């Protein structure tokens, strides 16, 4: 009895500790995105600051500082001596910079977000990313469901062999296909357009063909038979019987594909050329490589790119987790 209680407490403690570790980077990202430059690079000896702060000023705009444990006003620097003049309890004192610290109050530095949006054409990148996401999801749903239907709901010779081929191609690393595809698209004049990113989605993706095929196989054959007796064509059965019953699997497919495309980096990197075509992932990476110490704006941009996806995840959580377990267990 006691061991069970202890197990419960120990488990809870471990989970809380692990949760803190896992959430820390997120908190750090948001915190940094709201800090000003001076707060992002603390002075040596200062501990980590989680809550963004800004300097405190008095009514005349002068910094309030802490000196010897008391509050003072920073009157400015004496160029000759190099020391700062502070107004402490009515009288002036001199102090070196290291001897006092600026007082802080909680303050969110939203300028990082402004600067991020000024440096990168965010609306355009967002539009590009959304366009690619929606087109590829549409293409995947149409093509993969049709092909999966063929592998599961129609009996024809050679079907299983072709399905094995689908599985085999899942093993091919994308890098092997990338170079000739690049050359091919170049010949076709498609590089520098969105076509290399969108067209393949309409030609079937092995992973989703597999997923949908497994799902379709679970639908009772009687339903197809009944529809045939009612005079339904094969396509009619596909559209009016199978598809409506497959909403969970289709939703999972759409979600996974959307997520993948939202964050895809290699394809935009290789096939897009004009910075007006950049997706969000590409834009962030380029921003980082050009301004690699602008941590405030970088974290602001990261937060902005991540938030919609996390929101989408929370809205569709159950579908998500179900989908993952579907792929992991039906293997």
């Amino acid at each position, binding site marked *: 009895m006691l061991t069970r209680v202890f197990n419960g407490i120990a488990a809870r403690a471990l989970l809380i500790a692990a949760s803190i570790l896992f959430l820390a980077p997120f908190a750090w990202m948001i915190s940094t995105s709201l800090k000003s430059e001076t707060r992002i690079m603390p002075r040596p000896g200062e501990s980590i600051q989680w809550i963004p702060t800004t300097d405190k000023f008095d009514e005349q705009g002068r910094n309030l500082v802490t000196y010897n444990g008391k509050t003072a006003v920073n009157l400015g620097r004496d160029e000759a001596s190099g020391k700062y003049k502070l107004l402490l309890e009515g009288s002036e004192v001199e102090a070196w910079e290291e001897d006092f610290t600026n007082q802080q109050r909680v303050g969110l530095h939203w300028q990082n977000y402004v600067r991020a949006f000024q440096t990168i054409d965010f609306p355009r990148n967002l539009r590009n990313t959304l366009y690619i996401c929606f087109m590829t999801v549409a293409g995947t749903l149409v*093509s993969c469901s049709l092909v999966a239907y063929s592998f599961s709901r129609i*009996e024809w010779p050679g079907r299983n062999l072709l399905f094995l081929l689908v599985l085999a191609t899942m093993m091919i*690393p994308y890098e092997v296909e990338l170079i000739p595809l690049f050359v091919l698209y170049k010949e076709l004049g498609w590089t520098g357009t969105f076509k290399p990113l969108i067209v393949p989605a309409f030609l079937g993706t092995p992973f989703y063909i597999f997923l949908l095929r497994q799902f379709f196989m679970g639908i009772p054959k009687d339903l197809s038979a009944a529809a045939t007796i009612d005079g339904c064509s094969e396509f009619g059965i596909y559209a009016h019987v199978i598809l409506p019953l497959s909403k969970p699997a289709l939703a999972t497919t759409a979600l996974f594909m959307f997520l993948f495309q939202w964050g895809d980096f290699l394809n935009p990197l290789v096939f897009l050329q004009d910075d007006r075509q950049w997706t969000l992932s590409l834009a962030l*990476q380029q921003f980082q490589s050009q301004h690699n110490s602008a941590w405030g704006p*970088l974290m602001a941009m*990261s937060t902005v790119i991540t938030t919609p996806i996390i929101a989408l995840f929370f809205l569709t959580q159950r579908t998500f987790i179900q989908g993952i377990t579907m792929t992991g267990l039906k293997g």
Partner: protein
Amino acid sequence: MTRSERRNLRNGLLFASPYILGFALISFYPLAMTAIYSLSDYDAIKPPAWVGLDNFLRLTTDDRFWTAVKNTLFFTVASVPAGLALALALAMLLSLKVRGQAVYRTIFFLPTIVPLVVSSVLWIWVFSPENGLLNGVLHQIGIENTPGWLTSRAWAKPALVLMSLWGIGGSMVIFIAGIADVPQSLYEVADLDGAGPLTKFRHVTLPMISPVILFNLVIGLINGFQYFTQAYVMTNGRGDPADSTLFYALYLYRSAFYYLQLGYASAMAWIMFIVILAATLAVLASSKRWVHYHAD
């Protein structure tokens, strides 16, 4: 063939036609072309010039190639077992009747939702030697000599391994499902035999979830060998410092699109394909000894 059989054949092929076309264009054609390029000298401007096995021979004496191989092996060997262990541990914890399971599960899964570029940029910042989160925490608990992480030849790869642990949420979720599938009756029988929790784990849980372990292991290996985005973003595509993070896929990318040696890169691509295939087959073959498939 009867009329309905012929109709089925026609419909079957028709419905499958997107993939048939796709396979021809996106799998077969590129595979064949990569094989041809790998035996040629090709810079994407002049047509490919046949050089036979020259590219492959050059790879054997290319120091950077072997560095890339070693880096990729190190990363995979370090991150995959550690990742599986952590995912399994968290999955076990979440399978106990703890309150707020769904919340914890979400928390651990969240990092896998984040686009890889975002994680990479975020973790560059976390690893920042002067102002990053990690060294900040280490300083606060009293550790003064903190590593340079991504700026240090010795610590760059371990840093990436550490970062990969953040993303084990996907395998964890699959483990959770696998653990939930283990029949409760087996645990009860073990209880009757006087088995403690560790024994139950070793002799009931592990064997019953071995198919799921196999799945996560194979996927983990394949992903480890193809590690690209994080390496590219975190080193500006270069594999710094001093090639310590030059991973195989990164070197392949650079050879193709930076040095414009498409033939050379294609040779590398085929080697990668064969290695991944061999590794997967080896794991699958070994699985006969330790994986138990249950009849339901």
